[in-house]
């Protein structure tokens, strides 16, 4: 007999205000935030805590991964 199918709904449109209005930056931020909710990065044996990222094409600007509670959504200034 075939297995029961475990199905899950996708809600692409149902998203609150983004942290960054640049959709491609926001996509990377979301992916990293989601990932950091299920893994802990390590360097060698040591756990590493990260809270931001840079794009390889622009090492001047740092993007926050996590929205701070007191911050309004929308484009954050560079840290």
């Amino acid at each position, binding site marked *: 007999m075939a297995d029961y199918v*475990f199905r899950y*709904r*996708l*809600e692409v449109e149902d*998203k609150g205000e983004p942290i960054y209005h640049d959709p*491609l930056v926001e996509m990377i931020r*979301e992916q990293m935030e*989601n990932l950091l909710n*299920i893994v802990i990065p390590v360097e060698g044996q040591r756990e590493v805590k990260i809270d931001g990222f840079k794009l390889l094409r622009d090492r001047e600007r740092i993007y926050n991964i996590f929205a701070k*509670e007191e911050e309004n959504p929308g484009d954050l200034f560079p840290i």
Partner: protein
Amino acid sequence: MNSFQDIRNAALYEPRIEFIKKQLESLLRVVDLEKGGEVVQVDGFRLKELKHWLVSSRCDPAEVFEYASTRCDCDCLFCYNKGNPPSVALGNLRRPPKEELEEMKTRLDYFFPKAKQGLFSSLGEIYEAAMHPHFLEVLRLLREKTEKPFRITTNGKTLTEETISHLAELKPIYLYLSLNSASAERRRRLMRDRNPGIAIDSLPLLKEAGIPYAVVIVPWPVDSLSQMLDDLTDTIAYADKHDCHLVEINLPGYSQYFSSKKLFDLDEVWGETVSHIRKLRAKTTSPIVAMPTMYEENLYEERKNLPQIIGLVKNSPAQRAGLNKGDLILEINGISVPTRPQARDLLFMLQQSDNRQATIAVDREGKALELKLDLNDFCYPYSRETDNHLGIIFMGTGLRLSYLEGLKEIVDAHKARHVLFLSSTLMKPTFKQCLTQSHLFDDPRLRIDIQVPRNNFFGGNVFMGDLLLVQDFIDFIKEYLEKNAKPDLIVIPSSPFNLGEWGRDLTGRVYLEIERGVGIPVELLQCATIYD
């Protein structure tokens, strides 16, 4: 095509599914998928190979049959399901029973007790499994795969002679029978059970069928406290008369979603109930526990965490050997057991072993006694398969001293000097006592501040530490920082995040968010959830 699963169900136990959902949604905001040159609109995804989704599991049979508990045929005045906040990670998945059966059958196909593996579980709605039309069918299929006891919680409405005879074919079975009252009138009123006689009359039938059971009572002060206590007395006497294995009193509580108004004074109801139970214990043979057990311990016991016996299962090896309520266990087979967890661990090992005898030394009213137990000397309601501690009942699990060693390791790893330890109202007195007695934290430069966060999320009179959420911790720590120096480390017992192995609270938020929210290192102290 079967229904969509509720993602919130998966989020606690298998957050990788939630991760996939979020990643796909994130990608689909910036790209369209194509097939044959045409854009394909997708609205869901499915797991491909279920064998890839196996996880390590204790393979408790309830992991399968609990998926039958999606409905209830009672409407209890105190039902905690009515007081669940909307964001708690309980699915609201109502599917046809046939579809639920298909899921349970697939879960059974991937249920591997020998390999200790099973499909990821989920936190579903916990209602009345026994009323599911396919419940017995699922139990029969389960029995082909495991000899482990089926521990079934039931309101007793289906416990007719016929059902009990079917259950008896599937032993070992242990029932938690939510009787609540042995009075037909009161049970009808408390549980809106139109036919209360079935559950009430099931006690002698269960005994006849050799199925041990606990009688579960929520002492809800529906009229007056004195009427409630009188009914409690009668119900316990009825359970005792029919050789129940255990009487479990679940002290009543409610969240703000259950009632925004104060329904009763918690300390008055709990205090009076526990005081009454302590008197009843002296007159009753069946053991009685009042949960959460630490409430009684905090009220009455100056020295906590001791292996003192509060009850003995009828006809158990411990009862037949002459152990008494009130005895303080000193040694088991010559091994000193200064704390309750140590005693419970040794008794559990003996229970699982092939040993035929055991020796238990006790302090009885100041006198030392040694008693020999014949581990083969027992009969109903005790059984080797469903009991854990040779028939000895304690005032709860207690606190393992090894947790203090775990705390010491965390503090040392962080070289912390000021630690904020977030405990609970119930656990704090025991934890404080153990901390004071331990020499692990003698360094005078070290300060451990033990605080108890409020349960804002559930509200009402809920004050269990294990029901605290990420947001409760963040709110409390922020308040703490307004009045106190910033600690260099925050330690939280892992129990509010123990439902799965992924550190989620009851709404699915990961504990890591606390550190992100307050900017101070947060570590979880690994410890077991205390269910009693």
